[in-house]
């Protein structure tokens, strides 16, 4: 798929994020918008998944370790055809399959329930290990937040992945530099992120997480069966695509009001028109 097409889909995913969180009157748009391009690439270009057979034992596995970016995951899944787009407006409502954080028991196609930070990456390790044991060629992908790296469990998992030579594990760090209480540095910096993963035995790729050429290149290189797990550190902009949300910490866990919603949608429509 050409970059232009990926950009168009990613822009639709961003609209989905704004629509869903606005309808829910809550949710996490900032970190969803920052990961929208990577999720689009995963679901449309990278992963072998079939919306009609979401339990195919040979499918690639995906774990959204930063589960609060669920609106982005749901957007990518809906665009890919896992469920009707209309359902996106049920986000966070009673009886919905689109729980506030992804739940595998609610929505087919979600490979692991997440939301409690640090755990998704371990689950992805388990999936990668099972792939090795069952002699399957699938890979396990997981997107982590950069603030999530403050969870000790991430490093327990990193140690495990390296020790067990899980080279079919590809982690993506959504490196937007903002968490709830401020910048990484203001809260409790996990820097240097690349050196940490390297020290834990990972092969590390540092890219611009909004540049599809770089995303494509990193995933291509990350497929090498060299005994090492992979970490793609993707520099991103929190709130990417919505003028008043970009790099603003306050949009971590807050939905737009009606006026803000109109501005956000206009921003994305304008962006879409340039593609």
């Amino acid at each position, binding site marked *: 798929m050409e970059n232009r097409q990926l950009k168009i889909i990613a822009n639709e995913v961003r609209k989905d994020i704004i629509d869903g969180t606005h309808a829910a009157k809550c949710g996490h748009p900032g970190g969803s918008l920052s990961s929208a391009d990577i999720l689009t690439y995963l679901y449309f270009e990278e992963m072998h998944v079939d919306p009609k057979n979401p339990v195919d*034992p040979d499918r690639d*596995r995906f*774990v959204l370790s930063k589960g609060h970016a669920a609106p982005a995951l749901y957007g990518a899944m809906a665009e890919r055809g896992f469920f009707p787009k209309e359902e996106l407006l049920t986000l966070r409502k009673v009886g919905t399959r689109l729980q506030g954080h992804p*739940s*595998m*028991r609610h929505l087919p196609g979600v*490979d*692991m*329930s997440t*939301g*409690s930070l*640090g*755990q998704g990456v*371990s*689950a*992805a*390790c*388990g*999936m*990668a*290990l*099972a*792939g090795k*044991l*069952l002699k399957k060629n699938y890979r*396990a992908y997981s997107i982590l937040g950069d603030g999530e790296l403050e969870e*000790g*469990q991430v490093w*327990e*998992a990193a*140690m*495990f992945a390296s*020790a*067990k030579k899980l080279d079919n594990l590809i982690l993506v760090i959504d490196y937007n530099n903002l968490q709830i209480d401020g910048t990484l540095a203001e809260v409790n910096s996990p820097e240097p992120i690349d050196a940490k993963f390297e020290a834990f035995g990972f092969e590390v790729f540092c890219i611009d997480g909004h540049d599809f050429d770089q995303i494509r290149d990193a995933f291509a290189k990350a497929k090498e069966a060299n005994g090492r797990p992979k970490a793609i550190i993707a520099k991103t902009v929190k709130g990417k695509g919505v003028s008043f949300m970009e790099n603003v910490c306050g949009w971590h866990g807050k939905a737009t009001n009606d006026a803000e919603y109109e501005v956000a949608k206009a921003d994305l429509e304008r962006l879409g028109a340039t593609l």
Partner: protein
Amino acid sequence: MSETKRIATREGYGRALLELAEEYPNLVVMDADLAGATRTGVFAKAYPDRFFNAGIAEGNMMTVAAGLAASGMLPFVSSFAMFATGRAYEQIRNSIGYTELNVKICASHGGISVGEDGASHQCLEDVALMRQIPGMVVMVPADEVEAAACVRAAVKYNGPVYIRFGRAAVPVINKPDYTCEIGKATVVREGKDVTIAANGLCFTAAMEAADMLAADGIDAEVINFCTVKPLDEETLLASAKKTGKVVTAEEHSIIGGLGSAVAECLSEKLPTPLYRIGVRDVFGESGPFQELLHKYELDAEGVYKQVKAFVEK
């Protein structure tokens, strides 16, 4: 009773894993650097390619197991009860409980009978922690035979199960062909004056206590509540209706374990005078396990004294 063989319940765990390995090729085992103590080591030795040591990182181990189960494996995960259910509680709750994944959490060193290591290693709240997770099956076997039977029952059940084993060698009271069913309590001794609902090493203590009570003219009914959750309410209520007095006995805090489960059921469905034998809201301490069981009145004599006092009150 002096001729009775004594074997720790954890031995039954290791034995059952070995017995099930061929029949269940997707069965894999994880441990957190305690394989020798939990007895997963016997499986590791026989099936090194199906054993994964997570190192001293229980939280990661639990969630890795969830990922394994989500991908078609049948993981058994082990550590000491304190670290499995305490340290990794939230991982179990969110990655195994909420997901309903087929992970078997088999923890050794439950209870005060851990002995000399002391309170930091004596878990008296594991049953309470696991029991409150929706859908979690909780089992506390009484002897080596029942321990192996629990593992076999857990393998046949699709969903999360917690089984608690002990460190100390305890009397083997069941026959080799013994089987147990999840959610089914067994009336092992019938009586009319008082019901003793017990599990783990306190079940064996309760059986001995029943003999001592009989000598005093108290006819105790003893029920083995190997499964704490789901609680066999039918068996409990039938017995409570007959005897009119219930005592629970467990090597666990009186808060949150079998005693609480029984209290919850009786108070809602058949209010019955109840006494809970267990560790009474204190931490344990170091010491030889028999001495600790005696001090905390969890041995046969302790159970006997407490039941007698309750009945004669």
